[in-house]
């Protein structure tokens, strides 16, 4: 679902922290984008905004918040969006849903690297063509913005660091907000202008 029309740039807001930031962002800035909101389910994340719940992509109707179970519904979700419509993904590195999306970007990239190495041998392989349709969503052309969160638990901090490391390998630009409740209006304004220079933005930095 998207919350704006006729915009050239698209943002995918993933998870509860992203929703919170989205709701605090200037509406005029948001209008410059087509905004896609992806949440896990509605049980703890009720909102009156148009959002997509990942749990709706699970046929059995019961989706566990578990790294192994998220892959398939995420793939189904991405198959509903046109690759070129999203330029920026925003989420918290502490949320499992966003971590999984970052992980999948890495998986896709490594699969493509292997494929490219064997390109000339696999030129007429049906498997090769099947794989290409699977990986239509090209993460390496996207930017990602991690929303800073002060999380106290040791395991979550370490998972978050790993996720950021993986993102650096798979995404074009990896950015982060400098504080927990960051203002990203200025950043989004500059991003929509495509100046590419976000170095002077108050609350956002490239990592």
């Amino acid at each position, binding site marked *: 679902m998207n919350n704006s029309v006729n915009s050239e740039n698209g943002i995918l807001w993933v998870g*509860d*922290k992203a929703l*919170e930031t989205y709701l605090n962002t200037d509406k005029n800035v948001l209008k410059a984008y087509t905004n896609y909101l992806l949440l*896990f389910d509605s049980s*703890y*994340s009720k909102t009156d905004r148009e959002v997509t719940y990942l749990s709706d992509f699970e046929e059995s109707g019961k989706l*566990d*918040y*578990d790294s192994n179970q998220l892959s398939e519904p995420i793939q189904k979700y991405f198959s509903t969006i046109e690759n070129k419509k999203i330029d920026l993904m925003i989420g*918290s590195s*502490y*949320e*499992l849903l966003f971590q999984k999306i970052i992980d999948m970007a890495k998986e896709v990239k490594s699969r493509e690297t292997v494929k490219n190495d064997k390109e000339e041998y696999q030129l007429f392989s049906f498997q090769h063509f099947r794989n290409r349709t699977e990986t239509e969503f090209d993460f390496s052309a996207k930017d990602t913005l991690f929303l800073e*969160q*002060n*999380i*106290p*638990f*040791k*395991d*979550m901090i370490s998972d978050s660091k790993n996720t950021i490391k993986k993102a650096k390998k798979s995404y074009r630009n990896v950015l982060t907000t400098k504080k*927990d409740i960051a203002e990203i209006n200025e950043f989004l304004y500059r991003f929509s202008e495509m100046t590419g220079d976000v170095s002077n933005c108050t609350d956002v930095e490239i990592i």
Partner: protein
Amino acid sequence: MNRRLLFTELIRRHESNIRKTIRVRIKNSMDADDVFQDLSMHILDKIERESEDQLSKWDSKSWMATVTINYCYSVLRKVTSKKSRRMTDLPDDETLERKAYQKGEAGMHQEDPSRSVKHFQIDDILSLLNERDQTIIILKLFENRSMEEIDEITGLTNSSQYYKRAIEKIRTKIDVDGFKDQYDDFFFDD
């Protein structure tokens, strides 16, 4: 930090483990559902009140397991004490003491001090300990779990050390040695 977002993330990640932990201890499935709802509120309350320093000592899984186990036992203790209060028409303390002396079962045994007992409320004892140590004591002494099992449930790697320290702490706080000295006085003071 928005603690409510942290709560949501934790509940989502650990819901199935929490439910399993509750089911093992609260047998009635209807009760188990109610306990899960109440426990969720308890967890939210704890997350909002607990300092960052305190939480930063934990892995999220261990913290959730600890809070869940302790909560289950506090529920069970409440249920048990309510039942016993309902079923027994308790006499006042004096009558109870007199009867006990008549049967020779008083706290301090008149003829044989080594048979003397001192009663403590489990809640009072557990409240001397922090959340982690309470869980370890509950798992070890109430559920007869091995230290390996306790490590697995709580996500700790050295629960046997914590267990020893917790026991030592209880002994010091309730002054077990002082109590033993009282026996000695009773024995040798003739």
